[in-house]
């Protein structure tokens, strides 16, 4: 029967809690309402990228074009709304553009079968080029005040709207992955695409939906970012690319595919957020923050490794005494 054990995710959760306690004690101002709301405002966009990346990694792929997909969607929204279209139309237009990007990735990966890293490398450059040629490198703004509420507003005057959107998407992703036929197929295709094909799974449909979903999350991230920053530019969120891979992997997602959980990614994003905010509050130089993030990434995996080894030894001892 199922045992309650220290899974990868549980360890990570403990680390996250530990970190929170540590930061609260040692960093003045960490528990201030100001800092807490800050973190809640900063987390959603990064979290959305990390989730989008995680879903792709579970299939054994990777999406390097994700931030430019978001930027392109943002450009569409900006152009539509600055041309006087209502917010809803602008948002839908942005999502449609995002989905189109996802479709392009999905088509070449799922139908033609080219490896994801190559395809998304190509589309990354392509999307960047498209944005450059549309915007001529300039930033576009001109969103309506209601639009900026999405990224800057509060729900009940207390909780940032964007974190609510993020949590909703996280729960949705979790339900989709764990409880739906598509979600199950994602894990199966990620574990062994040949066997899933031989089991009547339409791999290319599953993959196509994965890239569409990832693009959708990127578009949502884009909505939050553009409304928060009130502008869009070619490099909108570009620094999130490798960070989101790191967060997904830190969250326990296996880079070869087949395994990955929303909750793990959530913990990882929280850990990164706390480190970033906490160390900034302490006045640690930014480069050192980068160093520490790298150290944490590797350290957590070493901890996992040691734990697996320890478990094996324990099992052995148990077997010997039995």
């Amino acid at each position: 029967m199922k045992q309650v054990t220290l899974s990868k995710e549980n360890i990570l959760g403990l680390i996250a809690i530990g970190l929170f306690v540590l930061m609260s004690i040692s960093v003045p101002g960490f528990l201030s309402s100001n800092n807490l709301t800050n973190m809640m405002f900063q987390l959603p966009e990064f979290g959305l990228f990390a989730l989008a990346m995680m879903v792709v990694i579970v299939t054994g792929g990777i999406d390097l074009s994700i931030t430019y997909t978001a930027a392109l969607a943002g450009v569409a929204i900006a152009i539509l709304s600055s041309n006087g279209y209502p917010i809803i139309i602008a948002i839908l237009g942005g999502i449609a553009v995002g989905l189109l990007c996802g479709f392009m990735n999905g088509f070449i990966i799922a139908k033609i079968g080219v490896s994801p890293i190559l395809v998304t490398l190509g589309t990354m450059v392509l999307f960047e080029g498209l944005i450059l040629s549309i915007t001529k490198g300039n930033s576009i703004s001109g969103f309506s005040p209601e639009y900026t509420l999405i990224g800057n507003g509060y729900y009940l005057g207390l909780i940032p709207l964007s974190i609510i959107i993020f949590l909703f998407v996280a729960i949705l992703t979790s339900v989709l992955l764990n409880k739906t036929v598509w979600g199950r197929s994602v894990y199966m295709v990620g574990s062994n695409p040949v066997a899933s094909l031989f089991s009547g799974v339409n791999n290319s449909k599953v993959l196509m939906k994965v890239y569409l979903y990832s693009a959708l999350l990127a578009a949502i991230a884009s909505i939050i970012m553009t409304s928060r920053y009130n502008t869009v530019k070619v490099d909108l969120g570009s620094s999130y690319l490798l960070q989101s891979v790191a967060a997904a992997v830190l969250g326990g997602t296996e880079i070869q595919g087949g395994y990955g959980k929303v909750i793990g990614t959530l913990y990882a994003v929280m850990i990164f957020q706390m480190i970033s905010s906490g160390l900034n509050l302490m006045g640690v130089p930014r480069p050192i923050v980068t160093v520490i993030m790298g150290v944490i990434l590797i350290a957590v995996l070493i901890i996992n490794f040691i734990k697996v080894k320890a478990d094996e030894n324990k099992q052995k001892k148990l077997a010997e005494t039995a």
Partner: protein
Amino acid sequence: MKAFLKSKEMSVAVIILLLCIILAFISPVFLTADNLLDVVKGNAVLGILAIGMTLVIITGGIDVSVAAVTSAVCVVLGKTMMFLPDSPLTIVLIFVIAPLFGVLLGSINGILVAKIQIPAIVVTLGMMSIINGLVLYITNGQYLNSSNFPTVFLKFSNFSVFGISIIIWLFIITAALTWYILKYTLIGREVMAIGGNKESAVRVGINYSKVQIFVFSYMGFLTGIAAIAQTSYTKAVDPNGMIGLELMVIAAVVLGGANIMGGRGTIFGTILGVLLLGIIQNGLILAKIDTFWQKVFTGAIILIAVSYDHIQYKRSQKQLSKIEVEA
């Protein structure tokens, strides 16, 4: 010859050839020796790193920390050169220091991948973050320029043999050496074997972790060489100058026919991949493509190249699985 016609390199070669023909028509300058040498020289650093990456990718690994490691070596190299005397010995010394430091960083990657069994992309992502942060912290992004280097190094940078720059020679020698290792040494064959089938490799008694550590250390060694080439090329050290290069390195290798899952990849293919990327960059300006559309073209060419290559590959696989059907 026949084998080559069917090989994966062939499709890249075809694309390069097509591009060359088009560019030759558009720009009379393109096919001049001068221009072609410039292209090779400008992409030598990319090439040297891509050659190391070929080995990593053949074993089924990946190293996204190459650009960061190269930057770190460049910085170390630049700082030490400020103290080195203006004598030929300095050149010898930098060829010891740079590769050694590269190997040191590379072997850390290797040990983490082999002994702790963390996936290569994760280890190297972490390393990239650590090294980039440290380099930025230590140097504060400060440039070192040629006035910081001994003149013997500047002479070395401008040195050429048979009219070919030393930087290109570094690339050629690296390629030849690596080709030799891959083809004629036991460890080279073990690299191929591990990529072909990891489980079999363990069963026939190949020391899997040793090979992995070797591959990452060798990658580190080549970042040392690449750092020398880079410093010679720009005659300056810019701690931020390599950011983002890792993706191009990986792209070059995979465009050259290496399989990202491991087992397949050749030095020749990688050289073609590097050339393809180099020619695209060069050609965009020669062809006077509008600035804002250059990236669109680059992206589109990469996508077409990889799709074409993959379709070719699938076709050849189909040929392979054919059986003789009686007429």
